[in-house]
């Protein structure tokens, strides 16, 4: 067993579907997509912070998977394979955004997007208690801004471990590195996050 599929509930045996899709059966590929796309979209949404970017990553990732399906050789689980594609796209995206941030001389609040999405989310869940909502919103804002202080790789490892519940060994596999490195990265990421969150309190 390579990785736990915590996000999926359990491991799904896709071998038959993959083989059919490799022979050009588009319907089989679409079924396959549906096994994974919710967590893919979730990952992309968390990491890009915007629905439209998430949708772009989603689209690009599955099209890439479709075109390259022939090269999938069952050496790792399909889940790992598809996540490797998604994580690469997301890392590109995060790096581009970081560059953009540095390039902007005027102090545009580049994480404003992030804030607003968390606010929106808090709104959607808001009950009859405005004070609690305010606090929740405040907290969401803090977390969002703490997360932006991580490097793209730290962010990715933290996301996969914390929000997707993957084993560090699987995370390492997805990011083409060792379990040990993933472990260290997670440690660093949480240190930073804790520091950032306690500062703000």
């Amino acid at each position, binding site marked *: 067993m390579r990785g736990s599929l915590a996000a999926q509930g359990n491991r799904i045996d896709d071998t038959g579907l993959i083989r059919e899709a*490799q*022979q*050009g059966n*588009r319907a089989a*590929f*679409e079924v396959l*997509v*549906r096994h994974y*796309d*919710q967590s893919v*979209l*979730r990952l992309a*949404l*968390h990491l890009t912070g915007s*629905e439209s970017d*998430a*949708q772009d990553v*989603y*689209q690009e990732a*599955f*099209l890439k998977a*479709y*075109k390259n*399906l*022939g090269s999938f050789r069952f050496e790792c689980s399909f889940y790992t394979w598809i996540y490797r594609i998604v994580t690469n796209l997301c890392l590109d995206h995060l790096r581009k955004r970081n560059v953009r941030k540095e390039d902007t001389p005027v102090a545009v609040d580049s994480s404003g997007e992030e804030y607003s*999405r*968390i606010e929106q*989310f*808090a709104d959607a869940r808001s009950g009859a208690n405005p004070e609690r909502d305010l606090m*929740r919103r405040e*907290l*969401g804002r803090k*977390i969002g801004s703490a997360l932006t202080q991580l490097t793209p790789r730290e962010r990715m490892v933290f996301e996969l*471990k*914390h*929000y997707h519940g993957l*084993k*560090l060994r699987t995370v390492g596999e997805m990011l083409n590195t060792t379990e040990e490195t993933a*472990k260290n990265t*997670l*440690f660093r990421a*949480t240190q930073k*996050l*804790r520091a950032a*969150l306690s500062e703000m309190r």
Partner: protein
Amino acid sequence: MKCDWVRQNILFYVYNELEDDARYEVEQHLGRCPECALELKATRKFHATLSENVQEPSPNLLASSRMRLQEALETTRQGGLWHRMILEPAAWLRQIRMAPALAAVIFIIGFGGGIGATYNYLAAGRESSGGTITSSMTGSKSPANQPLESSTITGIRSVTQEPGSNQVDIKYDTVSTQEAQGSLNDQRIQQLLLFAAHTNYNSGVRMDSVDVLTQAPDDSRVREALLYALQNDTNAGVRLKALDGLSGFVRQDPTVRDGVLRALISDENSGVRMQALHLVEPMKADSNVRSVLTRLSQTDQNPSIRSQAKAMLAQMPEMD
């Protein structure tokens, strides 16, 4: 010393990443050391804090992402040229049950006109008139429902229906041109029509055959061909015709419904989209239909479609 080691590993303890031995040691130590127990508490709190406010993609976002992907997949091919050449004809062959064909087609094309023509001729016609390359069969006379040697059809020249009857006249090419006449119920005629709806070189022919096919949409193969035409035909008139033929099945056949929804979103012709919109109106309580309507009401290029979609949504009872 021990405390240092435990502090280093509490995080992995919380994240369930410790081997059994290490886990046991950490637990033992935590039982004895109140400071480290505090650290555990802080780590757990941190974990819980970050687990709050987790944003999940909305069902709408998921649905629209899926639809966008489906659209893109339709125009995307897997792998390289090899796939394109082998899989494309294989797909339509399968669809119209021409299974024995691929090898035979290659074989026949390879051997060229003369041999091929003779072979077709014997297979399809049974009446031979020396060098002529056109055989004519009327519905009553033709060997009833005898399927054509499907591998021999290379294209359909024309489809005409005699007004007021269900007699259809089809000119089709094998390696040579042949002609077949028969009733709509004739298996041979159906097969030719299905083939014609799929072939691409003459939109007039596709229009005629789709038109005739819409008279027999109860047959699932016919429906399949109509769906295919709706999705893939380059001619908007043909797509509209196909949509017409499918109209009775939107409610009972989910495949048809999906096809219509796809057309509603992706068809470039606003007339086709408008027609599709009318077809799904009775189904607007369906959640897929609703999400498509929502999307249309916001993003369709055509203002009258947007407003119509909006109106349809507005009439709907709120539900979740």
